[in-house]
């Protein structure tokens, strides 16, 4: 979907509507959306901020100033969760997008059955994280999961292990699952980008005796750069939010090896018997700032300021 930065025909609209601005109509059209936005997004977000300076118990609230923030700075589990989440958000996008690029190029090279491949590869995205999580719990099962069964069949018994039960392999195993899930999505987007490339440019490169590798590095990659960076930012944002998959598979275990910020907030708010909603709000507020800062930095680094999408 190509789109312009400024709406087509904006000039004529501007001139015409500057004469008579139908404020009543504008308000009527926007009111439902803005009401929902204020009630269920803006107000809750501000209230979370307010909560973060309070102790919020079921029947009473008391102001505690910066106490929650001080506690958070010394909370090792929180920092562990931050490290896990950031590891996830940095490795997964690169893995997804690079594998997807290889697959998209393969399909772009006019392989027979391209349509079938495209449909088949897209299936993991259709399933919810809950379904995917349960499936991979089975796939990683120590006794009968395909991974270990396969390893044993190859005589590599030594490598068979409870993948999600070992603190060393749990996080990489889950990162692998998210990448498995999203490669197809990235591939489809990249394929669309490849198909929208001007044929003449590639043909010109071929005429110049440009090899396959040269064509890729000097012609194709620069042309789909914007799409690649978009996909990376998109995947990054998605992984910073990750909750469902961890919750259904490991709940952050073993030994906080797969704890993410989302699961930790949930645990502190609704599972731990402290009943305090203030502290988890502090985590949410700090995390919000971290996410915002990293996404802004990313888009700034990529010089994508006006292109940040989704």
């Amino acid at each position, binding site marked *: 979907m190509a789109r312009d930065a400024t709406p087509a025909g904006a000039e004529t609209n501007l001139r015409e509507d500057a004469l008579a601005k139908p404020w009543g109509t*504008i308000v009527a*059209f926007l009111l439902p959306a803005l009401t*929902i936005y204020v009630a269920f997004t803006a107000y809750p977000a501000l209230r979370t901020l307010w909560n973060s300076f309070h102790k919020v118990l079921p029947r009473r609230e008391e102001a505690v100033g910066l106490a929650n923030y001080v506690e958070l700075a010394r909370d090792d589990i929180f920092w562990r969760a931050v490290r896990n989440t950031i590891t996830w958000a940095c490795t997964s996008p690169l893995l997804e997008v690079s594998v997807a690029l290889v697959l998209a190029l*393969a399909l772009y090279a006019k392989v027979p059955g391209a349509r079938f491949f495209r449909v088949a*590869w897209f*299936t993991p995205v259709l399933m919810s994280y809950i379904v995917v999580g349960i499936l991979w719990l089975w796939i990683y099962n120590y006794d009968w999961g395909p991974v270990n069964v396969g390893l044993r069949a190859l005589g590599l018994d030594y490598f068979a292990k409870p993948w999600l039960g070992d603190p060393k392999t749990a996080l990489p195993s889950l990162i692998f699952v998210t990448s498995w899930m999203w490669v197809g999505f990235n591939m489809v987007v990249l394929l669309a980008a490849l198909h929208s490339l001007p044929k003449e440019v590639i043909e010109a490169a071929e005429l110049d005796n440009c090899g396959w590798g040269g064509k890729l590095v000097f012609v194709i990659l620069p042309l789909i750069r914007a799409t690649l960076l978009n996909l990376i930012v998109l995947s990054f944002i998605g992984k910073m939010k990750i909750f469902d998959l961890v919750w259904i598979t490991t709940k952050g275990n073993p030994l906080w090896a797969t704890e993410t910020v989302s699961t930790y907030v949930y645990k502190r708010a609704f599972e731990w018997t402290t009943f305090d909603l203030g502290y988890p709000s502090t985590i949410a507020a700090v995390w919000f700032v971290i996410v915002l800062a990293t996404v802004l930095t990313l888009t700034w680094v990529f010089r994508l300021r006006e292109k940040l999408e989704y």
Partner: protein
Amino acid sequence: MPALKRALLLLLLSFYTCFAAGPFVWAAMLSLRTTTEIHRNHFALPSPAHWEKFPEAWFNSNYSVYFANSSMIVISAVLILTLVGSMAAHCLARYRFRLNRVIYFILFSTIIFPPQITIISLFQILVQYGLYNSKIGLTLVYVAIQLPLTIYILESFFARIPSDLFDAARIDGYSDWEIFWRVSFPIALPAISTTVILNFILLWNEFLYAVVLITEEANRTLPLGIQRFIGDSQEDVGMIATGLMIAIIPVVVVYAFFSEKLIQGMTAGAVK
């Protein structure tokens, strides 16, 4: 030589296909076998196929309730989203006024909000207003979380409708509402159906907000039902697989009929 290369490439792609679609096929097979059969051999074909497991899960394990709840919540949320979102998008694309871009930016920037920033207070707010543990509450929250993306996709489409059309409609005596409902909306149907499919899939699979805002058995959505079910019967692999398939089937049906449209929907916004 090129033929050999081609065959090698094809082999590689087929290999990846097994890897990508294999787990789904495996789950489908498991869903038709009993747990005893599965424990004998985890990778055998479902013969004989135990289709009766589906009605069993549907009636005995409460999947009928979960399914009805999910349908009700997701369908109403998608309907509200479509109407409210397209109204706002039409307004932002069509009318030029001060604050237009500010409102657009505020709505749009919510896309990167981590859900934690709202979820704890949403819990408090819904409890206060008696919407906690209710389908209406969850529906409204679902509308709120998908609104930015919906407006974003629709606005860019509405903005490309030539304004001459609106001028012509106005000369014909259409009111502002009629211009939206009888000109903009029908023209934007391709983009609208994209957002409908996208919102349907995303909300059908949604888990985090549901798990925080719903605790009562009677109001559980499918993802929550599945979670409860594996909590109760961890070892009953066969039945769990049947439940998973029940949750996937609507999405697969949509996919079977609208695979192009759906891929378009899922990828909307990421293609430059």
